[in-house]
């Protein structure tokens, strides 16, 4: 290996190491803090390992911590988040797949224009839409409901999922569609029997993006979900902001980690698939 390659390699490793420290250090601090008792949190350095290991802050965060006047921990929020995330992901990915398929593989009239509008939709800051949307939902009787927040997630997720699927499907040769049409298959049959079976990598990508995005959402949950369906993120903020005497940093850290656990698990378990899906085209070779 010559000199300049060596320097390049060293620079690369330095960058990786710095990035690692940048992201892992806060995680480390949170983890050790969440495993300490409060006296220890107060007295020791934030980088020190716990002397007396305790899981009580985790149990507290999950079962009893107060968010506002309700002291039931984060577990209700967790289930609310599950109930919001699952249908939102399923619907936004399914609709994105159908849209992308229609736009890329059926020469629908005005397909280009519709796609352009959707792209604009994907990049306009959604805060702009929130107020009018909240008003419309109120008049439709959808405010503060599970259906309401799911609809919002689906609407705002759709442009990105459509974009992802359209790009993937535009790599599919027109003759494959033609062959299926000669075989007598229609729009849905071709989608179900020919196209979706080729789509696993990109479905994985879309699901990961949507699942983490929706799980991490705070604003829509706060505005549209209402009291009964508050997602975990909203409860977390409530919990951290509820003050009764001393701030229980260990419980806050545990609660935050609990909330982050789902996206973390998704990335760790599916990272390989994700990379493969991003890199893959629809047609091999």
């Amino acid at each position, binding site marked *: 290996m010559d000199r300049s390659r060596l320097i390049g390699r060293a620079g690369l490793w330095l960058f990786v190491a710095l990035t690692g420290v940048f992201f892992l250090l806060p995680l480390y601090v949170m983890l050790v803090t969440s495993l300490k008792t409060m006296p220890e949190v107060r007295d020791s350095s934030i980088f020190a390992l716990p002397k007396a290991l305790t899981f009580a802050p985790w149990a507290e965060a999950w079962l009893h911590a107060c968010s506002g006047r309700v002291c039931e921990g984060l577990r209700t929020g967790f289930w609310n988040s599950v109930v919001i995330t699952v249908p939102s992901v399923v619907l936004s990915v399914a609709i994105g797949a159908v849209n992308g398929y229609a736009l890329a593989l059926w020469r629908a009239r005005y397909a280009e224009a519709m796609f352009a509008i959707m792209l604009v939709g994907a990049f306009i800051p959604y805060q702009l839409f929130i107020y009018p949307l909240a008003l419309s939902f109120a008049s439709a009787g959808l405010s503060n409901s599970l259906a309401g927040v799911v609809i919002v997630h689906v609407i705002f997720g759709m442009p990105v999922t459509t974009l992802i699927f359209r790009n993937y499907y535009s790599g599919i*040769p027109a*003759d*494959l569609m*033609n*062959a*299926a*049409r*000669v*075989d*007598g*298959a229609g729009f849905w*049959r071709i989608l179900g*029997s*020919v196209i979706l*079976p*080729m789509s696993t990598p990109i479905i994985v990508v879309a699901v990961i993006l949507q699942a983490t995005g929706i799980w991490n959402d705070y604003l829509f949950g706060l505005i549209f979900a209402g009291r009964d369906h508050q997602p975990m993120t909203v409860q977390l903020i409530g919990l951290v902001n509820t003050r009764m005497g001393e701030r229980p940093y260990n419980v806050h850290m545990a609660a935050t980690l609990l909330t982050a656990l789902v996206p973390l698990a998704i990335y760790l378990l599916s990272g390989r698939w994700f990379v493969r899906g991003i890199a893959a085209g629809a*047609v*091999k070779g």
Partner: protein
Amino acid sequence: MKDLPDGPMGGTSSIRIGDLGIRFGDHDVIRGLSLDIEPGEFLVLLGPSGCGKSTLLNAIAGLIDVHAGSISISGRDVTRAEPKDRGIGMVFQSYALYPRMTVKQNMGFGLKVGGMAKAEIAERVARTAKFLQIEPLLGRRPADLSGGQRQRVAIGRALVRDAEVFLFDEPLSNLDAQLRADLRIEIKRLHQQLGSTMIYVTHDQVEAMTLADRIAVMKGGEIQQLAAPAEIYARPANRFVAGFLGTPKMNFLEGELGFAEGRPEFRAGGLRLDLSGLPMAGRAAPGPVVLGLRPEDLAPAGDGPGMIAGEVVLTEPLGPETIVWLRLGSSQISVRMGAEDFPAPGAVLHLRPDLSRASLFDRDSGQRL
């Protein structure tokens, strides 16, 4: 290929295309095209890339909309019919096999969509697979097949549906030369055994010459000539057709058509060629023309009047024959000669043209006189 299996594998249908117009946006790809295809005929659409062959074939298949004219198959107007209702089977250049299905599922897909019972699908697929000798491949995925095997499967998928008309869109262009020659013979045999109507798109004149009952030579969305291969080769309708068929190309000599004592004569520089053996020359008016001579219609001879002389610049020994290239004024001409006794570059060669087999074209329009 095995013998024809029991039962019908396909019927035969006529196809009638009347005044067809196809446009993409405001770009007219095909305008006022008419074409009649006999039942059981093997028609080849031949032309350079981009001339509208696939567009025409896709219109016959019902895969694209036409904006004018009509298409009927077996006397039934199918201009607005869905592809599946036209009784066609189609084979594509890129094979277009369904990647996540096995060969068996690929072949059976159309029947399954059509609602046929499982047992009958299995039986038909098995029969077709046997016919094409692709039984060992039935359990495999397309990714695990070679190019030739994929194209055989694609043919099988078209055959299994008992179509009346088969459409091929450059089915051999993705294969290497040897395989292309093999499959070409198989397709010819397929046509002889099934007797179905077939329309075959290609830009390869060898495929066209060897397979076709009739060739439709296309350029710019228009049919330039529609005739049997031998007719097109011997009497091309214009310079484009003359140049497109035959390797090496027909030789073109620019000159004047004149008459000496009532006998038609081709004049170019000092060259005088007596055209009285060419019936078309006698009927034509004097004026600027292009004389077309195939490389095999020139034979070496001694010096004398009516001979074409040129300096040999290059020889291409092909095995059974040799192509000799000569410089003739500012142009080059080619001559087909024997395998062994051909002249070396630098030599001057005198050639006697067989003018009874020549073609004359108007120099401006390029049309045959």
